[in-house]
């Protein structure tokens, strides 16, 4: 399994000019390791699963830019219909990273109301994502990521993440980031 922060770091280091919209645990970790803070929207607790929807809107508005979403499994369950909406809209520039740790980490590690056998990758495939990838160790993720993110999307990257409560990182409010994000996007 992969430590969440390690996955966030690898994705950020290989992002190039990609926009990153991140939620819950990866949303708290991204501001610490990001390489391009002006191209990030770290939602932390603000989105209730909708960071993927904001990311889809951005991907449709800016087909010239790669858009990465860092989603949690609890967050995806908040907004499961997004898989069908993405499959239908089929944005080629959309990469959906799922941080699957089986728990609500930000609130103390409570178990998700999900029977163990539910396979998010299978749901994404059925919903119409163009490609699906699954990683359970960081070395393989790092070796493969350039090829994965260069594919025509929508791409679903299922990351098996270490469960647990995790540390409490400082809370970065998305409203403090949105003006810089909007400005950076308008310039490029």
């Amino acid at each position, binding site marked *: 399994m992969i430590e969440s922060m390690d996955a966030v770091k690898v994705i950020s280091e290989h992002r190039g000019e990609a926009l990153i919209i991140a939620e819950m645990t990866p949303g708290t970790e991204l501001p610490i390791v990001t390489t391009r803070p002006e191209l990030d929207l770290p939602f932390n607790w603000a989105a209730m699963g909708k960071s993927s929807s904001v990311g889809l809107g951005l991907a*449709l508005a800016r087909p010239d830019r790669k858009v990465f979403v860092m989603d949690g499994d609890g967050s995806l369950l908040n907004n499961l219909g997004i898989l069908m909406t993405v499959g239908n809209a089929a944005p080629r520039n959309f990469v959906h990273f799922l941080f699957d740790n089986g728990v609500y980490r930000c609130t103390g590690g409570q178990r998700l109301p999900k029977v163990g056998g539910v396979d998010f990758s299978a749901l994404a495939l059925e919903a119409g994502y163009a490609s699906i990838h699954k990683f359970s160790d960081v070395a393989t993720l790092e070796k493969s990521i350039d090829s994965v993110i260069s594919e025509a999307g929508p791409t679903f990257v299922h990351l098996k993440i270490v469960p647990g409560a995790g540390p409490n990182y400082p809370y970065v409010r998305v409203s403090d980031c949105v003006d810089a994000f909007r400005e950076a996007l308008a310039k490029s």
Partner: protein
Amino acid sequence: MAKGRMQLFGEKIFEEFKKCGITHIVWLPCFQLGFIYDVMMKQSEIELVPVCREGEGVAVAAGLALGGKKPIVLYQNTGIYESGDSMRMVTFELHVPLLIMLGYRGWKGTDSAGVVMEPTMDAWQVNYHVMKSVEDVGMISLADKEAQEARKPVAILVVGEEP
């Protein structure tokens, strides 16, 4: 054959969308707005983005707006109650101007969707206008101006066809 009253209403609303520079319609089906959807489905100037639930669509529209496009969301009021967390995010975190057009089911107080509509908009701090006829279509441009200036959602509640 002369155009029906609702067909004309739908066409005028669409003309107003184009005047406002709307680029995308994020939508779910609505009985009350059926007369607009008849026009919407026959055109190709404004892109259509169907979604699965209302809150999801408000967030998709927010992303479109952040990316420089000008979306409007079209729903029935019955479903909009699900979108409270997205409305909070768009209004208080992202500060995105957004037009929301809702079929005003039960506007005479005939069902619960109508009874709690305006109090819900007030609670969410979303300004709204009630559109009752073709004479009111100028409200769309006014609501758009208001949304752009305030950088927040503004709703237009459309009294359309009752089932």
